[in-house]
């Protein structure tokens, strides 16, 4: 008797099972904190009857590790900057995207729709990533001490501001923006001579500095405590917000020679399980209601609207892989340690 009962139950369960499994589509997302907040994820899950598993990363290195973790740890969609996207595309870790299935890209600003103009997003005429958010490394200035908004990065070298300048402690971007300030065409590919010139120029910048900073909080504290005048905003407008919150009367400019900017994009991995769900996620991320949360919650710019500090004409230079990371870092180590110019 009991056996028949069990069989009946089993039959009923089996009959019910297919729709249950169908509703259980899972999307595995690899992203940075702030890109997939719980409310955003919940709304997506409800709309597409699916389950979203978000894994956050806090550095390009951990992103790289997770992308290479193997079969146990695969992802459907990933958010990464242009340089990383370029690496992953070359390694064949990503799938080309069908733009026709991403209708929300029509809301994006022209500069983000010109995908081929952004290094690393296309390969062989195919699109591998869609821009999502970015941050331009402009110049922050104290409005009291700097009456006219600076127009060039070379203001950082202005002896008027000696001991009142803050720069970021990192090899790659410092070489790139200094090269830009020196008028080098491609700041990411420096030849030996350009490298030497840039290194000397970086020593000169060091001599004009108050200090280098690593964290935005550190920059804010130094800026206020030591009444700094200029700051290279490695963290972009996020730092502007933080400084204003701390009571500083500061402005933000994109210099005429252009500002370096990182640009995070959404891409679909080779290991994708449900292609249309992955595309739906990327398209969902570009919805005005979702993209709007980036400036609101994270102080980051989205690709749909221009922040007040950045006009359409502002020259923004998306980060690209540099000629030799090791060389830049070795030189940088010497510069930041205070070596005399002859000991570089």
């Amino acid at each position, binding site marked *: 008797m009991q056996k028949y009962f069990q069989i009946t139950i089993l039959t009923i369960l089996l009959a019910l099972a297919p729709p249950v499994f169908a509703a259980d589509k899972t999307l595995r997302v690899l992203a940075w904190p702030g890109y997939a907040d719980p409310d955003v994820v919940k709304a997506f899950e409800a709309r597409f009857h699916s389950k979203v598993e978000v894994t956050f990363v*806090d*550095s390009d*290195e*951990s992103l790289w590790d997770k992308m290479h973790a193997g079969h146990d740890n695969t992802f459907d969609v990933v958010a990464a900057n242009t340089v990383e996207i370029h690496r992953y595309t070359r390694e064949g870790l990503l799938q080309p995207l069908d733009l026709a299935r991403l209708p929300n890209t029509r809301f994006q600003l022209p500069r983000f729709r010109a995908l081929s103009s952004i290094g690393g997003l296309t390969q062989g005429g195919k699109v591998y990533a869609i821009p999502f958010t970015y941050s331009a490394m402009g110049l922050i200035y104290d409005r009291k001490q700097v009456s006219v908004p600076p127009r060039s990065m070379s203001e950082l070298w202005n002896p008027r501001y000696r*001991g009142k300048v803050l720069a970021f402690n990192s090899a790659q971007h410092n070489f790139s923006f200094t090269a830009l300030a020196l008028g080098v065409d491609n700041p990411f590919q420096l030849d030996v001579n350009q490298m030497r010139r840039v290194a000397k120029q970086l020593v000169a910048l*060091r*001599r004009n*500095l*108050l*200090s*280098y900073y690593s964290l935005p909080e550190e920059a804010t504290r*130094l800026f206020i405590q*030591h009444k700094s005048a200029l700051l290279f905003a490695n963290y972009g407008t996020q730092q502007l917000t933080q400084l204003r919150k701390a009571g500083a009367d500061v402005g933000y400019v994109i210099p005429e020679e252009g500002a370096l900017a990182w640009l995070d994009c959404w891409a679909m991995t080779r290991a994708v399980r449900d292609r249309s769900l992955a595309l739906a996620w990327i398209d969902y991320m570009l919805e005005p209601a979702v993209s709007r949360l980036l400036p609101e919650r994270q102080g980051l710019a989205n690709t749909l609207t221009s922040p007040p500090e950045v006009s359409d004409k502002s020259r923004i230079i998306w980060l690209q892989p540099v000629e030799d990371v090791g060389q830049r870092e070795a030189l940088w*180590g*010497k510069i*930041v*340690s*205070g*070596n*005399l110019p*002859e*000991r570089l």
Partner: protein
Amino acid sequence: MRPGLTVKLSILLACIGILASGVTGYYAYSTNQSLLVKEAERNLLTSTELLSQRLSAVLNDIAADALTLANMPSSAKVAGFEDVAGDDVAKERLAQVFGTIMRLHPQYAQVRLISRQQFGLELIRFDRDGDRLVRVTGSLLQEKGHFPYVFETLALAPGRVYVSPITVNHEQGAHSAEGAPTLRLATPVVTSTGAVVGVVVINVWLKSLLDSVQSDLPAGHQLYLTNEWGDFLAHPNPAMTFGFDKGRRLLVQDSYEQTRPLFDKTQTSVLVNGLDNPQRAKGQILAFVRKPFGLPENHQFVVLGLARPLEDVLRGGKSLGESTIQMVLAFSVLSIVLAVVFSRALTRPLQMLTHAATSFQTRHALEALPVTRTDEIGVLARCFDQMRKELKSHMEKMSQNQQELRHLAHHDSLTGLPNRMQFFHQIECAIDAVAESGQQLAVLFIDLDHFKQINDQMGHAVGDQVLIVVAQRLRSALRGEDVVARLGGDEFIVLIKGPAIAAEVPAIAAKILSTLNEDIMTHGHRLQVCASIGISLFPDDGVTAEELVLRADSAMYKAKVSGRYTFARYQAAE
């Protein structure tokens, strides 16, 4: 068999005893544990506070060295020179002093004099390269003006000491100091005119600093140190330290949630233990203390923590735990024994009462009862005893009455002889007894002659007296085993048992007749009574009591007819 009251009561009392001792034991054990942990926490907190004071003391010693160097007149002189060449003699002499300080303090990684001029160029610099002391000179000297330990110190008043945050030293060319967690103490060098012309900087290895601070810490203690954001600087697992330097924050708040108040500055010390928070601090007790660090105006602090294995702390309580278990076991056994003894003591009087009650029916001897007890059982026993006595006397009376009634039921009240019913019962018994043996029985039906006349002429009292006398005479005329009964009125009947009775019966009948015929003196009258007797024999004349009696009766009539005062044998042919 269902368990009796003794067993039930024993089990109940034993359970109560075991439970009580178990609960008491457990409570004592856990209370002791938490007392031990609380005590250990207090001690650990004290140790941590002492550690923090020692850290202050060690830092003060280093600061004193820095101040000594900075206050040497030649320091100001050397730092104040616009030109590096300067007064080489003074510089060399000063360098010797710096070298001596380095030699005396192996925990110093670097000692430097840095100029305010030339972008913070180092003027005198001693590094440690392994065990070797290295003096760095010439173009190997570096510009350090952009480091906080220089520009912050230059802004200080004379005599004050800057204490840097603890970071990994990434300054290249620093020999052994490079890549090592380092703390920098710096103090301004001031000229006689009050101008700050440079700084003296002492780099200290965090490791040697902590080693000297925790040198006399008991074994098993582990040290934690974090900066003011909670990043681990010292941790039993070195991989957990300086996460921020590797692009990954590893915060004490994430490892030990309870430390948060230290960082939002609502508490200055925090205790965590694995007894109350097993998931937070597994097998450990920890004390964290917030300690101001560096210049007061910078509001910097570090958090020092000490951990001890919980096991170490509870080890003291382990023997107590074991003896508690032993005690609990011993008390459990004791409570079982006591429960049995007590319940038996309690139920024994009840059993006595029960026994007395049950045996009361069967035995008439009165069982001893615990009547001398003064408690409820004594009262019960006394009541029961009283009841038992009353019951006994009632029963005795009742059985006496019953006997009388039975006698009355089976005997004639006037003569005391068995009545008709009793006679029939006896004759039936006798028939049963002799039926198999083939013996004979004789039934003699006796009727007094002319008794009615006596009754009518002399009154019933005389008649009754006559009947009594007749009964006595009949009784005396016969043997003890023979049965004499009065059937009613003036009719008597006799049953004679014995072998060959047929032959004897006529003699017996004759003896009866003559005995009855004797004079009777009563109420002043002399009377003579005679009787007629009918005889029937078993089994010749009948095999049932009724037949025998009936036949004897008819034989008696025959005797009456043939002239009274005679006896006749029943004869069937008639």
